[in-house]
C-alpha cells in the first residue's frame, strides 16, 4: 500500500509528463488550474489518467472544488 507521500509524488510525476512541464516544477500545494494553465475539461482528462494509473474509480464529484495536487492525492489515497 502506497503512503500519501508516494501517491502525491506519483500524481505530480504523471501531471509533469502528461502536461509536458519541466521535471520538478510541480509541488503538492500547487493550484493545478493555475500552474498548468488547464481548464475543467483537461482536469477531467487528468482524472482518467489517474484512474488508469492507480486502478481506481474516481467519480467526478470527488474532485468538485479540488484545485491543488495535495487534496487530489488525498482523494485518490482514500480510494486505494
Amino acid at each position, binding site marked *: 500500500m502506497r503512503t500519501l507521500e508516494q501517491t502525491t509524488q506519483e500524481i505530480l510525476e504523471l501531471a509533469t509528463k502528461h502536461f509536458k512541464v519541466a521535471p520538478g516544477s510541480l509541488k503538492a500545494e500547487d493550484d493545478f488550474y493555475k500552474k498548468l494553465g488547464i481548464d475543467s475539461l483537461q482536469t477531467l482528462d487528468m482524472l482518467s489518467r489517474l484512474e488508469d494509473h492507480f486502478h481506481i474509480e474516481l467519480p467526478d464529484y470527488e474532485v468538485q472544488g479540488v*484545485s491543488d495536487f495535495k487534496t487530489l492525492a488525498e482523494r485518490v489515497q482514500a480510494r486505494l
Partner: protein
Amino acid sequence: MLDLSKYSSIGEAVRDALETWPREVCLYESDRSEEKQRITYREFKERSLPLAKWLEDSGFQAGDRASIIMTNQSKWLISAYAIFYCGGTLVPLDYKLKPEEQWTLLKHSAANVLITEYPIWRQLSGSAGRAEVPNVKTVLVTEAPPNADLAGAASWESAKGSGQPVFVPRKRDDLACLVYSSGTGGTPKGCMMTHGNYLEQCVALTSIYPFWPGVKYLSILPTNHAIDFMVGFFGPFICGAAVVHLRTLRPEYVREAFTKYQITYVSLVPLVLKNLQKGLQARIDELPPAKRRIFEQLRNINKALTKSRPLLPFSRLLLKQVHDAFGGKLQAIIVGGAFTEPQTLQFFYDLGIPVANGYGLTEAGTAVTVNDLRPFRADTVGKPLPGMEVRIVNPDADGIGQVSVRSRTVMAGYLNEPELTAQTIVDGWLMTGDMGRFDATGHLQLFGRKKNMIVTEEGKNVYAEDVEQAFEGLPVKEYCVFAANYIWPSRSMVGEQLVLVIHLDHGQSFSEELGKEIAVRNSRLSNYKRIQGIVVYEEDFPLTASLKIIRVSLAERLGQLARDKAILPV
C-alpha cells in the same frame, strides 16, 4: 408536440406528456460505458408521484420553494416534476458552487425543501453555513450508502407516499422557478421566472429546433442552467423525446455516448465546443497528405453546397467519418451560456454540423436570438426568436447600442430586489447591459458589455462585486474589482477578465508580500471567478457620502490609463 397554448403551467404540460407517450423512453442514464437505466414516460410518472405524495404529506404546499442541487441525472427531473405537481416553486442551484455559496442562495431563496445527492450533502451538512439557514427544514438525499449518517436528512429513495397526490394547478403568472444568474458573494440575483415565461420560451425555441418522439438529447450542461432546463427537460418532455444523462462527464465517455445513443441534439458551452474543435482538427492534421487533400476537397464541396442552408443527409454522406463519430444522427449542436467565436462555429458548419448559436440571458427566459441557419451566419448571434421584440437603445454612429428585449419570456423581476428590478426592466423592456446592433438582414451582432461583469467560456456569469469579498482586509488603503472591459470598453466578447484595482496607503509600495497575499486570496476563489490582473491606482477612489465607492466614476478615471500598461499580472 403538445399545444402549449392550452396549458397554464409546466406541471400541467408535463402531466399530459406522461399520459400522451406512456411507452416512449424519456430518460436514458449511463455511467461510464454502462447503461444503468432507461425510463419510459409511464415509469417516470410512477416514480415521481409517490415523491409528490411524500412532499404533500410532509406539508409542502403551493408556492413553497424546493431547491435541487444535483448533477444531471434522472432523479433531478423526477424531483422537479414532483415539486411542480405539488404547485411548488423550484430553486435549481449549481452543484459546482462551494457549500457556503449554496447555503447563501438557499437562505436567500427561502427554500424549505432541499433535494440533493449524498456526496453533495456530505459537504453541505458539514459546512458552517448550515446553521444560518433554518428555512431549509426538509432535506432529501439520493443514493446514500446503507447505514450512512444523513445528518438530519431523509433518504430520497424512501420518500414514497402512498395514495394519489393532489395535482395543484398554477397560473401562468405564478412563480415556476427561482434561477440564480449570479450573486453568491454580493447581491444574489434570483430571477423570478413564471410558468408563462417557460411555456412561451418553449414554443419559440421548438419552432426552430423541434423535438419529436425518437429524438435523443444529450444533457451535459448542468440542468440548473436555464438552457438545459429548457432543452434537457421541458422541451423534450412536451414533445415525447428522450434525454440522455451521463453520470461521468469525461471526454471519452461523452464521445462514446454520441455513437452509442445516436444523439440528435446536444448543448455545449463554448469551452467544450472549442475543445471538440481542437480534437477534430488534430485528427484531420494527422491524415496522410493524400487523404488530407481528399478530405479538404470534400469539405470545400460541402461548404459550397451548404452556403444557403444546411443539407444534413448530403453532409452525412460526404463527410461520413466525421458524422459517424457524432453518431450519424446529430441535427445540431446548441451552443450557449457565453459568446462563441465565429471561427469555431464556422469550423463545424463547414463539416456539415450545424451549430445553433444564439444570444440569451436567464433574465430573458434563456434565448433571445438564435441562428436559424438560413443562411448560417457565424459572425452574428442570429435573429430574434418568434415573440421576441429586440431593439437597440441609444445607438452610436455605428448603430451600436444597448440591446433591450420585450417578450413574455422576460422574468418577473429579481427576488427581494425591487430597485435592481426597476433598473433592469424599464417600461417593460429588459435592459440586457450587452452592446449590439442589427445588420441589414436583421441578424444581431454583439459588441461587448455595458455591465461590470464577465461571462466565462464555461458559461458562468461573474459580477465583479461578487468577487470583492475575497479581498476583504487586504492591507491596502482601498480596493475594488472590475471587469477590464468595463473600464476600457471593448467591442469584443472574447478574452474577458477581472482585475483588482488597489490604492496603496501613503508611503506603501507594491511589495512582493502584497503580491503573494493577493495571489493566495485569489486562489481561494473558484477557478472561474479569479482576477487575472492587478491595477495600482495612485489616487483616492471617488466615494458617496456613505463611503461607498462610486464605481462608474472610478471606472471612468481608470479608463484614462493605458490598459496594457495599467494591468499587472497576478
